[in-house]
């Protein structure tokens, strides 16, 4: 193909139709609280890892719901599973279980 010194930039728009639904339902089965998240940001602000680097469960949950698993995993790789978010979540979501399962389910295909 010809190169004219510029290229077509791919659309940054998320397409919700292309979300991997069976992985999403598996996560919901493993941690039913997942759907209760109201994105209040308490977990990501109390996060021990977030003191040092970019870890955010709130954004990761939102990304998973939008089918952006790869960027969600990057956000959770730094999690030390210390449980502070578990204590503080106002919706009573088992956040540790959620993080663990997101990493497990979405990392399967990477191995």
């Amino acid at each position, binding site marked *: 193909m010809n190169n004219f010194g510029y290229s077509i930039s791919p659309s*940054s*728009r*998320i*397409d*919700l*139709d292309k979300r991997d639904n069976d992985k999403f339902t598996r996560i*919901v089965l493993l941690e*039913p*609280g997942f*759907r*209760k*998240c*109201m*994105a209040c940001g308490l977990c990501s602000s109390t996060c021990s890892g977030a003191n040092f680097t970019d870890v955010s469960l*709130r*954004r990761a949950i*939102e*990304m998973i*719901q*939008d089918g*952006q698993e790869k960027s969600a995993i990057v956000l959770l790789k730094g999690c030390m599973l210390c449980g502070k978010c578990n204590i503080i979540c106002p*919706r009573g979501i088992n956040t540790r279980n959620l993080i663990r399962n997101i990493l497990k389910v979405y990392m399967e295909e990477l191995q």
Partner: protein
Amino acid sequence: MNKEVLIIGGGPAGLECASTLLMFGYKVFIVEKGSELGGHLRKWDRLFPESISASETLERLLIPSKKAIVFDETEVSSVKLKDGFFDIILSDNTELHVHSVVVATGFKLFPAEKKEEYGYGVYNRVITNADLEASFKNNSRDILQSKRVGFVHCVGSRDEKISNRHCSKVCCVTAVKQACEFKEANPDAEIYCFYMDLRMFGRGYEDLYLKAQNKYGIRFIRGRVSEVAENVDGELVIKAEDTLISRPLKVTLDLLVLMSGMSKNPDNDQLADMLGLDIAEDGFFVQHDPTINSIKSKIKGIFFAGTVTGPKTIPETLNEARSAALAVHKYLSE
């Protein structure tokens, strides 16, 4: 000789105010523009937050107000204030001579076609909350079988461009209620709610929100819908942004419900001139003392009840109707 009161508007506010005044022994006239009493309540199927039946609620309002004299399909043509009395001429030119007037003309549902970019009236699968309520009422399978459904909050509210800066207060909780009812009617529907702020302020509303998420798996996306278009197969393509991760997103839906807000009743302006009252910038009547006495108007003997002075839930409307009746009673017994 019991004194006479005119109530303009036969919706829930008018009816409840009438029944309370009847209880006080006044002679009550109700002027209703439409052909039937009940106002918008007649069109709803179930009411938030517990999805109680709207028709039963209407019945409970109609019965006690049965003795009021009703002029349906009539409007007020002119009003003259003469030493404590109101000489009213109606459109069927009956003349009334009343001691007090209660304005309960309510609101108008925002005409969703004004938001052209949402394509109401242009795309067949775009309906409003009122249409959905009607679909629940007569169980129209065609609508309720839609697989992917979207609810668009703040249609015609909090929108400078259509001069409705106010928040209509009830559409968020209505959207969540309808979303849950839709999921019950069609369990394998995938439902999205596009919201900017989810204002679930009332008692029991947060539980409804939690049930919507937890039990029904309804997906709440924080971002107002910008455009709606039809793709080649006639499905709706929705464009919005997930502002929680600041990424634009699009989704293909089979049905889009626009949550039309409460905007002013267009007849208010004409009515205001007749009664000598003022209309605020948001199109609702100006209350004389909004904090202490929200049902009082600046003219003695004229009172307000219900959504004529701004968006309200039905419980709030009924409370205000009763307090308006009390104010009339207090005024007339001076």
